[in-house]
């Protein structure tokens, strides 16, 4: 059982702040690190993996700093996002080399290859592997020494659904075994399916933390903005504002549209067509104007 402690960690590159005063504790079980692209997830994982030093703050594994501490890798397994991995070797040679670097042997490599179900292709050159096969061999290389902490950077990127399921099963088993498994993703559904605990990071800041129900609620309960065009904008606006699901409406005469801010997402989406029919108003356009993941995340940061 191992715990990663990130304590008031910031990391900047020149003038750019990639990670901004983040504090979190990653314990046993599967944790998802969720955030849009460029949010600082990789920087954070690289600090947990000992590849980057925090500009301020500390990253420790069971109280021991990871930076400049090679012995930490006895307990940490790293699955990098990048594809490059000694393509001129066969899968078996690659995993055996990784085992030897841990002071282990071919037996441990074979066991790791069996865990990821790659024995059938272990004697082929890595250069011939598909993305999913590469990912599994990377997993095997990170598992040879049975680490108590497993760090995976965007492990599901480019995987097909079947490979995704297999990897999710594997990570679930690791988590159930009491290992500390942390993976990053920019896709909520992925994180929701796998992680019992979620850490959300946006624009380098720690935006939310908790189980997926809490995060999901935070994401759907936020105010939604819609752009609506209809046959009678003013009449529609008047009818909608009477209901508590709507917090504000702007009549944009130059655009010929309504900008509506809804506070109760479920209620508003049911109300809008009913109101329109009741007043014989034709709805021409109904489009959410802030549905991008980035805006969802930035709401979480502000919350």
């Amino acid at each position, binding site marked *: 059982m191992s715990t990663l402690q990130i304590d008031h960690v910031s990391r900047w590159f020149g003038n750019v702040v990639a990670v901004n005063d983040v504090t979190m504790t990653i314990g046993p079980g599967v944790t998802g690190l969720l955030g849009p692209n460029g949010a600082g997830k*990789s920087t954070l994982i690289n600090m947990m993996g000992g590849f980057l030093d925090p500009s301020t703050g500390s990253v420790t594994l069971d109280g021991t700093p990871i930076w400049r501490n090679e012995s*930490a890798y*006895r307990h940490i397994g790293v699955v990098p996002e990048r594809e490059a991995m*000694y393509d001129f070797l066969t899968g078996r040679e690659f995993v055996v*080399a990784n085992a030897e*670097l841990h002071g282990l042997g071919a037996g441990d490599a074979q066991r790791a290859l069996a865990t990821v179900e790659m024995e059938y292709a272990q004697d082929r050159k890595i250069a011939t592997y598909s993305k999913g096969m590469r990912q599994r061999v990377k997993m095997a290389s990170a598992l040879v020494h049975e680490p108590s902490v497993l760090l995976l950077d965007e492990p599901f990127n480019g995987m097909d659904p079947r490979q995704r399921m297999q990897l999710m099963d594997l990570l679930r088993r690791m988590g159930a075994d009491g290992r500390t498994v942390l993976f990053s993703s920019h896709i909520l559904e992925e994180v929701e399916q796998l992680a019992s605990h979620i850490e959300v990071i946006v624009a380098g800041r720690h935006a939310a933390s908790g189980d997926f129900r809490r995060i999901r609620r935070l994401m759907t309960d936020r105010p939604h903005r819609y752009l609506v065009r209809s046959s009678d904008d003013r009449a529609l606006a008047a009818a909608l504002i009477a209901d508590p699901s709507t917090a504000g409406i702007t009549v944009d005469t130059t655009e010929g549209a309504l900008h509506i801010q809804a506070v109760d997402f479920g209620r508003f989406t049911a109300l809008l067509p009913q109101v329109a029919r009741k007043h014989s108003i034709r709805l021409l356009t109904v489009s959410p104007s802030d549905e991008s993941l980035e805006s969802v995340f930035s709401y979480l940061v502000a919350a």
Partner: protein
Amino acid sequence: MYHPTVARLTYRALLGRRRAAILFLLPGLLLLIAAAVRAFNGADDQIAADVLGGFALATMVPLIGVIAGTGAIGPEIDDGSIVYLLAKPVKRPTIIVTKLTVAIAVTMVFSAVPTFLAGLILNGNGQQIAISYTIAALVASIAYSSLFLLLGTISRHAVVIGLVYALVWEALFGTLIEGARTLSVQQWSLAVAQKASGDNGMIASDVGLPVAVTLLVAVTVAATWYAGQKLRTLAPAGEE
């Protein structure tokens, strides 16, 4: 300070790449030149010294050194696969020393061996020319490997910088400009060769032996130490 697995990976990476063709091409060219010169001119000590000094030591050894030295680590850093070495309980200086050992071995095999063979072809080691230049190539292999391994650790343009150094500084300035010669691996190794040939007038260096040996050792040790330090704080490729 030496990890056999790191060494194995480095050998396979070095000799498996297309770049490795140059490792065979240059020595092949040297042997061809040696054979042609011998065939047209017969054995001549001065010509043998000119060919070994002008092509083997001034051009071929540094080029082989660039390929082996930068190739031992540069590509792994560029494509990010170095993380599989770094994420292990292996001391970073051990990784550097192992890779340096491999680079030196490869440079020696592909430069000193053909130099010796070419010397034999040219004048059958008359006046100790073949053996002296072989010693120079061996000594230069160590210094070049450590310099270019460091270069491969700190710069993504290591090959270009290495080529410029090898061709412009060593081959051109090193032979033309007085001051540059003092700071030239080629001249340092020539100083060793001069001593090895028994100062018979066939091989001459602008640098005295004590200075040459001191600089050779200093450059090799400093470059290796610094490369180990750089590797300890190497940021992953593609980091923002």
